[in-house]
């Protein structure tokens, strides 16, 4: 006897507890198997690029906070690097170190979110997420000390950071580094060798290196596929040429490798933070600049950083005015989403959300 079946189309999102933000993906299933995938974007579009064109160079920093709201510091850094290239200025050494320090703390916080939600999507509701958020809260407290805000930081300015650290920041940072060692070990013991997690993620949704490169994927997703590529090493910015760190590289590019690479990067970021604390010296943190900056007409600059999700770039064009003539944002989450089909086609419904979670997209950045 044959059963007559037909594929069924399901909308996942745009508002669904397990999609990351307002992301909608239209999936056609044949039973449990995914046969067609169509991501639908644009629900969180705010026109950041256009808004940047009518604000002056410093005011745009506040817009960059809201792109990838889980790694605002790194967004600030990318934009400030672009403006500094445009104007031909360079921040003082302490400013560079503070930026590196803040960016690495933000990378830890962002990866903790990624890992926490990744495990939550595997079905471990609550507990691992609380473990990672506990440490993330401490980092946000440090950011509050640095700049008065926890998420929308607006900490960096073209030419450095807005002000020096308060006196109680350094003891608090030392305390955090001391405590976080144990907390991270706890999270690693809980997750890295967890049998259920490995069964669910090993070999699922592998991304070959050539596909990853062809799709122009960057960040932990690319490195999990075995490509050793990190802008912090390839083109060091700020104080990254002064610190030592390794780039963890995965092998298979499956969900477990993407998760594993993030866990290892947290360790490396911790190393960088420690070195920054040891190397930083007193001095000015911000180059004296006029409040309203102007670049030469026709000047162009592309500032890129290795953000927590991949290569984040700001392309600025100046027409001599007080605001950028064009501000193009190369956001890693959007480009990383282009591999959705490669990841999902042929896999099961239950693995779909996990695979999406392993890419670690952030809709604030995808739709801008």
């Amino acid at each position, binding site marked *: 006897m044959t059963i007559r079946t037909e594929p069924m189309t399901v909308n996942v999102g745009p508002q669904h507890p397990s999609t990351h933000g307002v992301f909608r993906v239209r999936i056609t299933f044949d039973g449990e198997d995914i046969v067609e995938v169509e991501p639908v974007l644009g629900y969180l579009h705010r026109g950041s690029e256009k808004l940047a064109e009518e*604000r002056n160079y*410093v*005011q*745009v*920093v*506040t*817009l960059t*906070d809201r792109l990838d709201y889980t790694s605002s510091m790194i967004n600030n850094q990318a934009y400030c690097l672009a403006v500094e290239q445009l104007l031909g200025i360079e921040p003082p050494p302490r400013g560079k170190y503070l930026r590196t320090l803040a960016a690495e703390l933000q990378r830890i916080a962002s990866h903790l979110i990624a890992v926490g939600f990744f495990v939550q999507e595997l079905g471990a509701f609550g507990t691992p997420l609380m473990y990672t958020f*506990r440490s993330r*809260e401490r980092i946000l*407290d440090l950011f*509050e*000390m*640095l*700049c*008065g*805000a926890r998420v*929308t930081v*607006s900490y960096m300015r073209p030419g450095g950071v*807005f*002000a*020096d650290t*308060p*006196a*109680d920041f350094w003891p608090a940072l030392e305390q955090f580094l001391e405590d976080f060692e144990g907390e991270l070990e706890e999270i690693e013991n809980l997750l890295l060798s967890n049998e259920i997690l490995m069964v669910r993620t090993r070999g699922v949704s592998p991304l070959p290196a050539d596909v990853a490169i062809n799709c122009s994927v960057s960040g932990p997703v690319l490195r999990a596929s075995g490509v050793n590529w990190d802008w912090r090493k390839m083109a060091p910015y700020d104080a990254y040429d002064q610190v030592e760190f390794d780039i963890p590289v995965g092998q298979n590019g499956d969900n477990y490798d993407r998760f594993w690479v993030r866990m290892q990067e947290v360790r490396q970021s911790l190393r960088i933070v420690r070195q920054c604390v040891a190397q930083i010296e007193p001095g000015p943190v911000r180059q004296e600049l006029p*409040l309203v900056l102007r670049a030469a007409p026709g000047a162009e600059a592309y500032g890129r950083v290795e953000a927590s999700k991949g290569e984040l770039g700001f392309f600025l064009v100046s027409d001599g005015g007080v605001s950028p003539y064009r501000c193009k944002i190369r956001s890693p989450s959007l480009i990383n989403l282009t591999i959705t089909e490669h990841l999902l086609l042929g896999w099961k419904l239950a693995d779909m959300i996990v695979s999406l979670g392993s890419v670690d997209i952030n809709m604030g950045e995808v739709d801008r």
Partner: protein
Amino acid sequence: MVKGLAVTLSNLMRKPFTTSYPEQRIRQHPRFRGEEFTWYEERCTGCASCAKYCPLGIIKIVTSPSETAPLQGDKYRLETFDIELQRCMFCGLCVEACPYDALFMGSGFEEGQYKRTDLVITIDRLRQAEKNPSTWFRPQLEGMDYRPGEGRPLGWREVGRENWRWHQHEKAGMRLAAGRDDSEGEA
């Protein structure tokens, strides 16, 4: 199973790392950027740097020529100083732009109103508000070991970056008020 129970027990003895919010409060850092902007009329010259520097343009300032002491240089009187809090994103750029240390961020975060018009901070509200300035972008306050909301409110002469006399010529009203206060102090 015993091993599993041991893990459970060891975690049972731990202190929770959450706080139940309305009853318990986390101590904010003095740099916290919050609402209830603190504004010192005595220091403000009405230059509207903050209004120009606001990325959203939500600060509205109207000045009129002052009748009191135009010759001494007290040129403008503040008519309107509206901050539309409902659109404010607390980036603090207005505070950064203020050259006279007249505007400060506040430390509150619980501004809920039933009407959107109630969210506009007017000049009267700014005048009457208790002055608990945040130390954001004001390094002189950080040196004082001051915590907003946990001590007395600060007066306008305590919050300046430099000696208040450095911009006397910009704001003659300050000089007049200061002179009067000094004489009172002596008496």
